[in-house]
Structure formats: structure tokens, C-alpha cells
């Protein structure tokens, strides 16, 4: 501790240079945090996917419907515990930018297949009995200031151009971190009554399994059952489905890895250069310290300490700003509902910053350590 004033004094001898280097770290760590947040947002479905659920979609495309009659057939397959279904509504609430996902659901089985999305019992009871009722996720309700009892008008874009009005009967909350709280549910029967085409169909099925171990067998059985029919199916685990969905956006992982690598490598060069200049311009002082009795190892640790402090200050600022940014919630208006910087990411960011700080400081520090006092004093 008694050496800290010496390290701090050296660190801030060139305030502008140190500030700019810390700023570079801060920008890099902010970007790193943001990239991880975006990656997390894209992979949200993957992370929270139930291991005991299968998604059954039309083999041609997700947008092609499946017959409602499949449900009973799927239920007869060994290993299937329950089956529910959803249909994408794709409506607009007030403005296009107010995006949130709306699904026509099967009220009877939805809570059994997705128990993690919890609705208070009395609200669910009201919803089941209300043909034009709806349930909104807590995130969406908060976003638009909705409360139970509100009338929600949503303009249809797929099933005609008129506005559908729903009674907000309840608000669901996720029971796990990362659960999607942006959805809007209403009765499948209401959709089926009002639409003029594709009656008797659903968007996709979600099959709840007795055990995750039966996933492969059940998926094969479902697809075999529908083979050579007009509506063949493609069945995969919920995780694989979510992963495939995320990959439609491109290889986010690779993109993030590439950007992150370039940013940190540049940071390594910038900081390494700063530390090298810092050492070079005070060779006489380092020699004096050694002459006074400071060991070579102390000089090494002092320079590394300076480099590490730059990294830590930068990380605190960068990750702190990123955290503040994410606290404001999804900046895309609903496309990235899970926009959250986790503690693990912050910790990982710190570890990366410290590693970069150490790597950037190691060469200048070791050259300072090897400095011969006599040679250095001759240069002063």
C-alpha cells in the first residue's frame, strides 16, 4: 500500500495521455459489454429453452400453418405429455415501432406447457372466460403503461386490416432470469372466428415431453406421422429451434468474436505503446530508484501496476456505462427484449481487461527491470 502514491503519481504524470488510454479501455469495454448483451439478446431463446419441449413447424417454412387436427394425433405418441399451439398475429399497436410479439394461444394447455410464465390464478380465470381477453408480459405492460382492465387496440396486418380490441385480463411474469416478458397472448378461438382464411390451422405446436430423453424418438415419430401428407412437419428441440432462429440473423457469434478480437488487439497495441513511451521517458528516474535500493522486481511490478490500473479504471468506466445503458432497457423497441448485462459478463470483462493490461505492460516492464543503472544514469 505504501507504494501506491508512487504508482499513482507516475500514472498521472501525463494526465492527457493517461486519460486517453483509459478512455480507449473504456470504449473497448463498453463495446465488449454491448456486443455480449446483443449476443445474449439474440440467444435468449436458446438459453431459456426447455429441455423437455419440442417445436413442430411446417416443413416448408415457419410461416406455413399446420392443421389443428394434428394435436390429438401428437398426443397419442408415447413420450408426449402435453401439446399446445400458437399462431403469430403480427399486429401493430399504435405505431410500427411499438413492436412486441402477439400470439393466439391455446388457453387450456398453455400454462401446462409453459409453467415458467406465471399468471395470477384469478387473472387467468378471467382470461379463460373472456373471449376477447388478453394476457400481456410484464415488460410490455410496463413499456406501454398498461394495467389490468385496459382495452388494447391492435391493428391486424396478416388477418385483414381492421383493428382488433382486447381486454387486458392479466399480466404474466417470468419465473427465471431471462424469461421473455414481452409477449401478448389472446384466444386462438377468437382468431379462428375472425379470420377469413386458414381457419382450423395453427402456426406451430409445442410438444411437452415426459422426459428430455425421449426427445429424439418423439421428434422422429412426429415427422414420420406427417410424412407424405400435405402438411409435413419439421420437429426439433426448443433449443435447436431458437438457435436456428437466431442464426437467421447471420453468424452473430463469429461477428462478435471478430469485432471483439480486433478491438482488444488494437487496445493491446495502444496501451503497450503508451507504457513503452512512459518507460522510455523516465529511464533516469527508474535508474535512480534502482540506485536508491529498489529491486529490479519492484520496478517490474510498478510498471505492471500502472498498466493494470489503466485497465481497471477503463474497465470500471466502460462496463459501468454499459450497465447504465442496458438499465434503460431494449433500445430497439422490442426486437431485443432480453437486453441485460449480467454479472458474469462484467466479471469476464474485468478479467479480459486485466489480461490486456498485463500483456500491454509486460514488455515495457521487463525492459525497465533489465535496465542497468550505470548505463541509464549515463544517459541522463
Amino acid at each position, binding site marked *: 500500500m505504501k*507504494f501506491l*502514491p*508512487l504508482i499513482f*503519481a507516475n500514472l498521472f504524470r501525463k494526465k492527457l495521455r493517461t486519460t486517453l488510454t483509459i478512455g480507449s479501455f473504456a470504449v473497448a469495454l463498453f463495446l465488449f459489454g454491448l456486443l455480449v448483451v446483443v449476443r445474449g439478446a439474440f440467444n435468449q431463446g436458446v438459453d431459456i429453452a426447455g429441455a423437455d419441449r419440442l417445436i413442430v413447424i411446417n416443413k416448408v417454412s415457419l410461416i406455413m400453418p399446420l392443421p389443428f387436427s394434428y394435436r390429438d394425433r401428437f398426443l397419442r405418441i408415447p413420450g408426449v405429455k402435453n401439446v399446445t399451439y400458437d399462431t403469430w398475429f403480427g399486429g401493430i399497436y399504435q405505431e410500427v415501432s411499438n413492436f412486441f410479439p402477439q400470439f393466439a394461444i391455446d388457453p387450456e394447455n398453455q400454462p401446462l406447457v409453459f409453467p415458467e410464465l406465471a399468471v395470477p390464478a384469478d387473472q387467468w380465470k378471467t382470461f379463460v372466460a373472456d373471449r376477447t381477453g388478453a394476457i400481456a408480459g410484464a415488460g410490455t405492460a410496463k413499456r406501454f403503461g398498461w394495467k389490468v382492465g385496459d382495452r388494447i387496440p391492435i391493428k391486424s396486418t396478416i388477418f385483414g386490416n381492421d383493428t382488433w380490441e382486447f381486454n387486458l385480463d392479466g399480466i404474466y411474469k417470468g419465473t427465471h432470469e431471462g424469461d421473455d416478458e414481452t409477449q401478448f397472448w389472446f384466444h386462438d378461438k377468437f382468431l379462428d372466428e375472425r379470420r377469413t382464411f386458414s381457419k382450423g390451422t395453427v402456426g406451430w405446436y409445442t410438444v411437452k415431453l415426459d422426459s428430455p430423453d425421449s426427445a429424439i424418438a418423439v421428434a422422429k415419430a412426429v415427422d414420420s406421422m406427417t410424412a407424405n401428407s400435405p402438411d409435413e412437419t419439421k420437429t426439433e428441440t426448443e433449443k435447436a429451434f431458437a438457435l436456428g432462429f437466431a442464426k437467421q440473423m447471420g453468424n452473430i457469434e463469429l461477428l462478435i468474436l471478430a469485432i471483439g478480437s480486433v478491438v482488444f488487439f488494437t487496445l493491446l497495441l495502444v496501451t503497450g505503446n503508451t507504457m513503452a513511451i512512459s518507460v522510455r521517458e523516465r529511464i533516469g*528516474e527508474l535508474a535512480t530508484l534502482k*540506485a536508491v*535500493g529498489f529491486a529490479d522486481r519492484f520496478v517490474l511490478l510498478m510498471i505492471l501496476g500502472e498498466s493494470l490500473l489503466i485497465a481497471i479504471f477503463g474497465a470500471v468506466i466502460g462496463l459501468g456505462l454499459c450497465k447504465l445503458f442496458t438499465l434503460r432497457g431494449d433500445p430497439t423497441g422490442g426486437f431485443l427484449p432480453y437486453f441485460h448485462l449480467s454479472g458474469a459478463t462484467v466479471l469476464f470483462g474485468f478479467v479480459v481487461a486485466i489480461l490486456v493490461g498485463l500483456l500491454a505492460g509486460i514488455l515495457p516492464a521487463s525492459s525497465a527491470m533489465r535496465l542497468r543503472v550505470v548505463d541509464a*544514469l549515463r544517459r541522463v
Partner: protein
Amino acid sequence: MVKVDGSGGANSLIQARDLDKTFTRGGEVIDVLQGLNLDVAPGEFVAFMGPSGSGKSTLLNLLGGLDVPTRGSITVAGDEITHMSGGRLTDWRARHVGFIFQMYNLIPVLTAFQNVELPLLLTKLSKAERRSHVEATLAIVGLADRMRHYPRQLSGGQEQRVAIARAIVADPTFLLCDEPTGDLDRKSADEILDLLTRLSVEYNKTILMVTHDPAAAEHAKAVLHLNKGVLVEGMAPGAH
């Protein structure tokens, strides 16, 4: 007592025997010191004079453990330093040697107080003890009222006094001064030399000083002349 013929006794604080120092530059071998002997008793104030390149600073570097001789031995207060490892030599320097340089070599980002405190950071003294040592030492050099000043806020003479305070604060066995007045005007130089004389007379400090300045050498109790790597005893200041 200062001897250069190797006849010094066991009561010598500093004892150099058959000291050779050779440098190789561009394939050419340069003998800087040749078979040099030196004995310095405790409390002596010795001035080394000689032309540029005569080996004065090299001798100081060897005696201060900053460099190692090509041949010969150096013993200080019973410690043979010639064969010490780098780490041990660093520890030894911290305990036994106070350096005073021509260009002061203060750390510009530290205050006078912090500069003087530096050697004490290597000891086990508490913060309060360090503070009292530093304050007392700065009072000795007449800078008690300049403790919070940075080197850039001090005159050259004041900077050198801070450097002297840094050199003596840990109470080293001896002081090595390399042209301590070389960068100062006459008045400031005299003040520094008076201070060194006081340290020698009042505090019985052993001081070895390299200088070109005959007026500076006059403050020493003994003056040695170094020429072509050989020490000559008793030459009067200004004789070269």
C-alpha cells in the same frame, strides 16, 4: 585516514584492493582503472579529482555497488560486495549507500517530502516514523518549509538539498556524490558544500565526492587525484 597504497588497516570503512575496470568499445579495450587501492576511514570527506575520462565516476559506481570491477575486491563495513548477486547488492545499497547526483535525479511527480521518503519505503518503518524521519532530515538541509513543493517549484540548490536529504534520510554508511555542484551557480554550490561539510563534521558522515571544481574539493578533508586509472594521494586542490 585515507590511503591509496593498500596499506590501510582493519579499521578502514571502505577498502578497495587491486581494482581493475576495463570497458570494451567497438572492439577496443579501455583500461579505466588499473590496480587501484583505496582505504577510507569512517567520517572521512574525500574528494576525487581528475580530468574527464579519468575514471572518477567509474570508481564511484564501483564503490556504490552500481557496477562490478573486472578484477579486485571492494569491502565496505566488512561486507565484500564484489561478488554479491544483483538482488543482494540492491539490498546492500539501500542500507549502506546514499547517492547524490549532479542533476539531482529527483522524481518530478513526487513532492520534496515524497522524494526524501523513497528510501524509507524500503524499510519497515511505520508511516508516522517515516514522516518524522523525513521532516527531521528536511529540517537538517533547511527545507522544512518546502516539503510539499515539487522539484519544478524549487531552485537548483534547493533541489540538490532535497537530493542530499534523500541520500541521508535512511542513515547510510557513506555518501557518494558525483559532481554535486556541477549544475549550480557559485552561491548555491557553496551552500551545498557547506551542507556536506556539516554532515561530515557534525554528523560524522563518510563522504566520497567526485568533482572537477577545486573550490569544491577544498571542503574535503582529503583530496585524491585520479589519472589514467591510478589514484595519487594528497595532491593539493587546483594542482591538476
